[in-house]
């Protein structure tokens, strides 16, 4: 925002602000105890298989197909949310229409509704005899029990992440910049694409990353709508469950560890990109 704050962020006089040691220490300790050490268990367990064993599990055509579906559908769902999420946020922040507050409240529904309930409700809506499915069926569009259904469920659970990260940034966006752009002769479209979009971009990337990450591992809401046919509509977390049903903990953790590594790399990439976008455009968020 202001030059002062930018400089302040870049080079904080370490001597002035206290609490670095205690807050970082607490964060790292808590993170380790609750997240990292338990997750390490997954890697230890799968390490029992050895590299070859892990490769054998993960490279089987069925697991590959499931990983492809989970990551592919999550990517498409996150992209859908990356288009509609900012649009929804924009409409909420800039326009006024009847029922706006209600819709604003409904955005967080995917967090509160247990995922299995969401799955059952979505399947009911999008199956051939459902409220929505009955209109899609004559058009030859099948949603429930196909990979499309997987994307629908993943879009549902990821939406709040994008809307809720972009919304505050739009609320903060300074209108002087838009006015200045307009005064300088920019069309509205140019203003949006060259002034507003760059401001929103870092937040959008964050929202995209979170929505994507959440969708990759999702089980409860997807399982009812997916159809679960091997090689076609079977998601990777279901294969983890199947391995567990066979008491094959090592195999289950091998798939879990693979998914973790992939997700973490993607998160790291997107968070790095986000930090870069923030530096480049010199905007908060």
């Amino acid at each position: 925002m202001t030059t002062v704050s930018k400089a302040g962020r870049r080079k904080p006089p370490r001597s002035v602000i206290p609490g670095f040691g205690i807050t970082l220490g607490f964060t790292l300790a808590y993170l380790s105890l609750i997240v990292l050490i338990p997750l390490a268990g997954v890697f230890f367990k799968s390490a029992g298989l050895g590299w070859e064993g892990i490769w054998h599990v993960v490279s089987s055509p069925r697991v590959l197909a499931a990983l492809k579906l989970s990551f592919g559908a999550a990517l498409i769902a996150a992209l859908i949310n990356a288009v509609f999420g900012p649009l929804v946020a924009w409409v909420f922040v800039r326009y006024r229409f009847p029922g706006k507050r209600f819709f604003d409240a409904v955005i967080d529904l995917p967090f509160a509704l247990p995922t299995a309930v969401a799955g059952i409700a979505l399947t009911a809506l999008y199956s051939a005899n459902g409220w929505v499915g009955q209109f899609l069926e004559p058009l030859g569009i099948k949603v429930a029990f196909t990979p499309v259904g997987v994307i629908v469920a993943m879009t549902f659970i990821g939406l709040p992440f994008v809307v809720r990260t972009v919304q505050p940034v739009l609320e903060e966006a300074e209108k002087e910049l838009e006015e200045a752009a307009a005064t300088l002769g920019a069309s509205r479209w140019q203003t949006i694409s060259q002034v507003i979009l760059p401001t929103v971009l870092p937040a959008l990337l964050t929202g995209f990353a979170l929505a994507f990450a959440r969708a990759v591992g999702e089980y409860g809401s997807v399982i009812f709508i997916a159809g679960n046919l091997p090689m076609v509509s079977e998601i990777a977390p279901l294969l983890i469950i199947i391995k567990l049903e066979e008491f094959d903990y090592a195999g289950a953790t091998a798939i879990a560890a693979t998914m973790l590594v992939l997700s973490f790399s993607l998160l790291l990439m997107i968070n790095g990109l986000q930090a870069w976008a923030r530096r480049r455009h010199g905007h908060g968020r």
Partner: protein
Amino acid sequence: MTRRSLLLLLTFILALDARVASAGNELLNASYDVTRGFYRDFNPAFAADWKQKTGEDVRINQSHGGSTKQARAIIDGLEADVVTSNNPLDIDAIVDKAHLIPRDWASKFPHNSAPSWSTILFVVRKGNPKGIRDWSDLAKPGVSVIVPNPKTSGNGRYSYLAAWEWAKRNNGGNEAAARDFVTRLFRHVPVLDTGGRGATTTFAHRGIGDVLLTFENEVRLIQSELGDRFEVVVPSLTVRADNPVAVVEKVAAKKGTTRVAQAYLAFHYSDAGQELFANNDIRPVNDAILKKYASRFPPLNTFDVDQAFGGWARAQAVHFADGGIFDQIYQGN
């Protein structure tokens, strides 16, 4: 804020240290999914009987979940005194992986420790529009079959094995023909739900499929819940699905509940217990009581998994294990 956080932290630590009251008169029964109705009737009946015989009070806690999931929970430390399952394999798993139950558990109670059994039947839509009478009709063109995933559900496993055995017997014991039939059958399956209830929802609420394969007691639940829109078809051959029980002996010994746990399981065989099974659409092993409820239980021609497939463990290894025949059906083409 800090004082409250500290207080909550303290609560948390106390909760961590909470010890389970290991009174000798409290049992935990880890059971499979659809037995809630049965145990709601059975547990008070047993408690009354026990009180009358010994003067002691007993309280029975119930845990329900998928049969294999429950076995896994016990292996991982769920302190159940007794396990009541819908297949013997899950109890064997507790024996193998956690050594909490002696290997000869099946000999501890009559009928291989299985006080009740069920079977797989067909549910079709009212009027049976596709004319489904037997297994052969399931693989006919235009017929769509709903069956839960054999990898994750007991119904699915039993349905698969019943189809296999029927095809084998109808082709002079030819295993290749059986495999061919089961492969064709699963090409008619549009959705593989992970559990019996999901499959029922897909069939009954979503209107998908012409026939649903599921346990007899679920068939009755479908009819009572969803009314008169369905008919039951009894195939020419189906599977006997035993519901075995066992005392988780090491847990019971630690908690001092062995005596009451054994009495609890034995009560499943009493006339009162057998009647309660019949009332809940689960077939009792006592033939006299089964006959008494003949109107509920049509006569069946059944086979036994142990005899037909050389034991449950072998059936599991050949058909359902990773890379087994079920996987090959889907990966081979």
